[in-house]
């Protein structure tokens, strides 16, 4: 009897205690899901801005005055999401350094719900079927569907946009976009028109004073620009032809590109992955093949250097540029089994696409967001628009991106003009870099995935970068061989002369003391 009583009390206690624990242990008893996001390094606002960094642009999305990053974007998303859903999300945010790095990780079995690779890698993932389309509700006119509402029609992948032909409409959501060009210091140029062409990279006037990206795709594109330079500039080439010229991967083109790149290798200061930014800012090099977003970063850095402020410019070579974008895509093996994760992933894209957040990211990383809308346009005006008392201003037309009638009153001194009609040509400063004018856009092509030509192009790249044993001159081989022989001979003579390696046997009549 007694034992029964005790056990009954114990059981009751357990039940009571258990439920109490459940209540007190976490005040918020909603289910928590994990969202695995993988993005480029340094490609999202990490918050922690100073107060004076406040962007004084009207913010209709939060209660704050202006736009400022106090917490990191990921934390803000978690808070925002958790405040209006019946379950909670926790973001596992990781980063990658190159598209190939991400792809290798995916093929080794890493699982992410949503990733943000570049255009060609998106196409590769789509071709391999490792994706889930964005749901219909993502495109509905719901108030919180910020991406559908604010993405620029120019870039959304739908019919009429620049990427319409590439079949990622509704499968991916564009995050940042830009062009490939040359950042340069106008004061150090021999001839101001040198930056008009990709030939700058092989121009002996700038021997060891320009850098190129240490990346086979960007280097190959520049080489093709040089290869086709004369033809493109002297003929009226249609966009289709331009695209096929700049995406040529036949053996003959690859061989020609190899020669050009070998020539470039002798001429450039370095093949760089990241060091180019610092070398450009500190003035070690005059020009630098660069993505537009990093170009903005470099220009901002160079002009804010207090002791040695320099005004750098960005040029989109007249032959052609690679228009690229990085976009969000939901991976099949990540989100497949969970409706909630689908929702969270789409909410994440919507949150980073909310115009005030797009501005935060643009400010923080320097790249150009896919998001149009008045907030972003106002931010551009706030940043780069001319002061009211500025002397020489003009209306910079951005209607292709922000819609009809969108212009910014800009300082004429920050652009290069065609003298007669005063149209902006291929050069300018930050505003030009972030939103190139229509005529630059009109000669931009999308660089496709190399597909099964990758192996051959990579072999070409190895040929460029490696020392070929056939190329070594006999004189060099002779000198090296002679030096090695002498060193070996000295060591051997020494060793035998003093019998270093010989066993030391006691001489006759002597014996070894143990």
């Amino acid at each position, binding site marked *: 009897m007694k034992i029964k009583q005790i056990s009954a009390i114990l059981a009751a206690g357990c039940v009571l205690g258990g439920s109490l624990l459940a209540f007190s242990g976490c005040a918020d008893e909603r289910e928590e899901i994990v969202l695995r996001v993988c993005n480029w390094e340094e490609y999202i606002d990490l918050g922690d801005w100073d107060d004076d960094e406040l962007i004084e642009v009207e913010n209709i999305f939060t209660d704050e005055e202006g736009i400022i990053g106090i917490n990191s974007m990921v934390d803000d998303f978690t808070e925002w999401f958790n405040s209006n859903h019946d379950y909670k999300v926790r973001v596992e945010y990781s980063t990658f350094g190159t598209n190939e790095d991400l792809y290798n990780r995916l093929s080794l079995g890493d699982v992410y719900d949503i990733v943000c690779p570049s255009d060609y890698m998106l196409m590769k993932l789509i071709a391999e079927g490792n994706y889930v389309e964005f749901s219909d509700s993502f495109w509905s006119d719901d108030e919180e569907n910020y991406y559908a509402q604010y993405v620029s029609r120019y870039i959304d992948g739908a019919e009429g946009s620049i990427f319409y032909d590439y079949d990622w409409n509704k499968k991916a959501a564009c995050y940042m976009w830009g062009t490939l060009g040359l950042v340069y210091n106008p004061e150090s140029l021999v001839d101001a028109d040198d930056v008009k062409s990709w030939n700058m990279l092989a121009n002996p006037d700038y021997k060891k004073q320009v850098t190129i990206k240490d990346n086979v795709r960007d280097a190959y594109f520049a080489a093709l620009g040089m290869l086709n330079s004369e033809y493109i500039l002297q003929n009226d080439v249609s966009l289709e032809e331009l695209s096929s010229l700049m995406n040529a991967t036949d053996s003959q083109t690859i061989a020609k590109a190899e020669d050009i790149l070998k020539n470039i290798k002798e001429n450039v200061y370095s093949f760089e992955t990241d*060091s180019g930014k610092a070398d450009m800012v500190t003035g070690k090099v005059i020009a630098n093949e660069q993505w537009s977003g990093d170009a903005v970063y470099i220009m901002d850095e160079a002009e804010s250097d207090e002791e040695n402020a320099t005004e750098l410019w960005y040029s989109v070579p007249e032959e052609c540029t690679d228009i690229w974008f990085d976009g969000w895509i939901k991976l099949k093996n990540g989100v497949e089994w969970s409706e909630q994760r689908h929702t969270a992933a789409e909410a994440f894209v919507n949150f980073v696409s909310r115009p005030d957040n797009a501005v935060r990211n643009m400010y923080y990383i320097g790249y150009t967001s896919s998001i149009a809308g008045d907030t972003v346009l106002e931010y551009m005006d706030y940043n780069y628009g001319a002061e009211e008392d500025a002397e020489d201003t003009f209306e910079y037309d951005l209607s292709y991106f922000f819609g009809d009638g969108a212009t910014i009153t800009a300082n004429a001194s920050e652009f290069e003009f065609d003298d007669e009609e005063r149209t902006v040509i291929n050069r300018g400063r930050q505003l030009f870099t972030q939103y190139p004018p229509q005529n630059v856009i009109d000669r931009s092509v999308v660089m496709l995935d190399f597909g099964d030509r990758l192996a051959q192009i*990579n072999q070409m790249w190895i040929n460029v970068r490696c020392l070929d044993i056939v190329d070594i001159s006999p004189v060099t081989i002779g000198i090296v061989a002679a030096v090695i022989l002498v060193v070996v001979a000295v060591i051997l003579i020494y060793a035998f002369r003093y019998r270093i390696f010989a066993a030391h046997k006691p001489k006759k009549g002597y014996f070894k003391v143990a």
Partner: protein
Amino acid sequence: MKGLRFSRSQLCIPYAVFLILFVIAPLVVIVYYAFTNGEGQFTFDNFINFFASTNTLGTLLYSFSLAIVTTLVCLVIAYPTAYILARSNIRKKYVLLLLFILPMWINFTLRITALKEILSLFEGNISSYPFLNSVIGMTYDFLPFMILPLYTSLQKLDNSLLEAASDLGANKLTVFLRVTLPLSVPGIISGVTMVLLPSMTNYVVLDMLYNSTYIMGSLIGSYFSSYDWNNGSMISLILLIIIFIVTLVTNRFSDKDANNRGAIL
């Protein structure tokens, strides 16, 4: 209650687990990839590719030249330094020794970044001398690894041997050539091993000092980034075998010498 007891062999378990997970298992994967093609079929093609490609052989030669020159420069700088530190009666020589080891406490990318600025000061445009800069960078990086073994072997050298040699009429040069140098061979060998092998693959130094020619490490990386695991793995494997042979040879020398030294003493 008795305390937990481990036998000696049980104490090895953590290391054995580590070894299996992070050394043996990756090695098996490398061997697997090295002898298969993209479809997972067994093949010797990667092996043939290695020796058929003049680029790979050229890169191997370049890596070796870079490593050998670096090692020689390190040796030439380190030997006198270690000798002076170990043999002379400088006061506070431990402070001096510390000064040589001190750079190792600073992260090496930081050191190379600083070196880049110093070299720019002397050379102007540093990208004009890629080979020289790579040698300087690696020497800067690996010098302590050469000094320390030399210092240790020179320091424990028995003074009475040197005195005996002098007493028997040898001049200073002869003493050095016939006693000091032979007895420091183990130090030289271990210093050489510690510098030669890492400097064959340390491509970060080359990258940071703008040498755009590939060495073995960067070549492997470039295969991996084009999803060609097979050729990349074969190069890694062959490099591993070369390093293994070098280690084997140097070990033979140093062991034999250690025995000889035992015989002398």
